């Protein structure tokens, strides 16, 4: 808690909030005050832990097996002399998952550059194409292997969902990659990809926050990064302190929510037993407005 500027800023914001809550000016929708408070609180926590990490504070993250397996998968491809296939989802860059997928691609391409393993990245959107090309080029440059970088390793297939899936399936059947990585936002085509990958015997690692597609990945892939794990993975691989700090901050917010859940349950228990008069549910309900 040695971040003076942060504390001063937080105090000022808190005073403004208090002022709004007490005077309730006409301009302010005070019924939504609880949410404003939570936005400020959670935002503040995230901001604080980022600053903490940037100042060199300790940021420990546990290992995630799926993340570790990425390097092994690339290694296996190298041994077998087969390419690595990377699918960054089928959505555009306006989805958080796609951005995370492109960031992870940056790290995977560093490994392939190091091991001189061929990399194949089919994409479904033109904007993703540009971003993914930039990411790969940068990685090969950083690893000093821009001589083996080839712009066509990232290529556009089509915008259409199933046509794209069919195209990727074709690539799998022809090139028989030893490792298939699916990182991004997926819909119904997830099954087609995972089933084909399974049939060619590749190591498959998936990462997505699309709830309804996770089961197909869990059953057909070797490793799956589930929901929040997937977002954390990009921070984990990047090792950038500000991103790691955000993940740490999310953990603190989670603790706050756990306290809310358990404390709330206790408060409700006391309320139901008639010991106290305070109804937590009414407090948490945003009144209509």
């Amino acid at each position, binding site marked *: 808690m040695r971040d003076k500027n942060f504390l001063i800023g937080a105090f000022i914001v808190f005073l403004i909030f208090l002022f709004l809550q007490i005077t309730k000016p006409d301009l302010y929708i005070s019924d939504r005050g609880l949410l404003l408070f939570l936005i400020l609180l959670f935002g503040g926590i995230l901001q604080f832990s980022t600053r903490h990490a940037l100042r060199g504070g300790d940021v420990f993250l546990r290992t995630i097996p799926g993340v570790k397996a990425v390097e092994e998968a690339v290694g296996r491809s190298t041994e077998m002399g087969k390419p690595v296939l990377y699918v960054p989802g089928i959505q555009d860059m306006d989805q958080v998952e796609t951005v995370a997928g492109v960031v992870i691609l940056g790290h995977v391409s560093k490994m392939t550059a190091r091991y001189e393993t061929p990399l194949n990245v089919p994409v479904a959107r033109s904007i993703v194409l540009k971003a993914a090309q930039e990411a790969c080029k940068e990685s090969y440059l950083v690893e000093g292997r821009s001589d083996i970088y080839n712009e066509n390793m990232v290529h556009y297939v089509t915008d259409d969902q199933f046509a794209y899936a069919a195209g990727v399936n074709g690539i799998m059947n022809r090139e028989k990659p030893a490792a298939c990585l699916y990182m991004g936002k997926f819909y119904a085509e997830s099954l087609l990809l995972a089933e084909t990958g399974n049939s060619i015997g590749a190591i498959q690692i998936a990462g997505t926050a699309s*709830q*309804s597609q996770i089961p197909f990945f869990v059953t057909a892939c070797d490793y799956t990064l589930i929901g929040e794990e997937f977002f954390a993975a990009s921070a984990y691989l990047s090792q950038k302190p500000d991103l790691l700090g955000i993940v740490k901050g999310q953990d603190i917010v989670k603790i706050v929510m756990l306290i809310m859940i358990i404390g709330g349950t206790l408060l409700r228990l006391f309320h139901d037993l008639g010991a106290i008069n305070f109804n937590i549910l009414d407090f948490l309900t*945003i009144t*209509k*407005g």
Partner: protein
Amino acid sequence: MQNISNFILKLSRVDRRWIFLIIGLSVLLPLFFPLGLPIRPTDTTQRVYDAFESLEPNSKVLLSCEYGPSTKPEIHPMVIALLHQLFEKNHKVYVSCLWPDGQFMADEALKEVAHLYNKQYGKDYVILGYKPGNEAIIKGMVRDLRAIFSTDVKGTKVEEIPMMEGIYKFEDFNFLFSASAGFPGSIEWMQYATDNTNVKMSTGTTSIMVNDIMPFVVSDQIQGILAGMPGAAEYEKLVGKKGIGTSGMDAQSIAHLVIVLFIIFGNIGYFIERNREKKY
């Protein structure tokens, strides 16, 4: 024993076109030769039914159609069954659509049901139609419905429609049913309309969306859910009108059974293979 496991192994490497053929037939045959398996309403379906049964007569129900032809098999039977129930209880039905195709679906369903109960357009039901803008439309309706819908789908001014009297914003409705196949749909209605007002809602969704919405049903943010085609069949049973949902249930049952058997057989093959690999 060896022979049996060899046989199973052989089966597990069968060309997948045989699998395709089996699943195709297991859906197609029951459509021609129905078995008439009994349908039993689940709890969440019952809750939707009860929610509508408990409405006062002549309530104003907003029916929002957010589905299109590709998901019609799952959602359309629900809408038809629901319309039977609403018209029977003399509720007024207002249809709005967040998907462009929604209004054809609604139109088709109303044409099929309304005349059975002698209901008239403009007096007992109205199609406000499709407006583009996704969740902006929901937010707009909560603030000022007539700013969003100045006319109905036929171009009649809202002021000239008898049943629109007293409807100025979303809160003037008594209940919302969202027939939803994706974005924008039930979740957006909940986030931007019912979570912020006193109007309650129920929903009917495609199977794939059920699990995304279920937590909100259990926490009472949504009153019950009709889950996919089986949900529609159950609702048809509750309302007492057999439809497409009911007739599809035999095929659905057989196909599910076949898939479960596939999973079991596939895994038996997998185990045999793994055990052999261990031995060598």
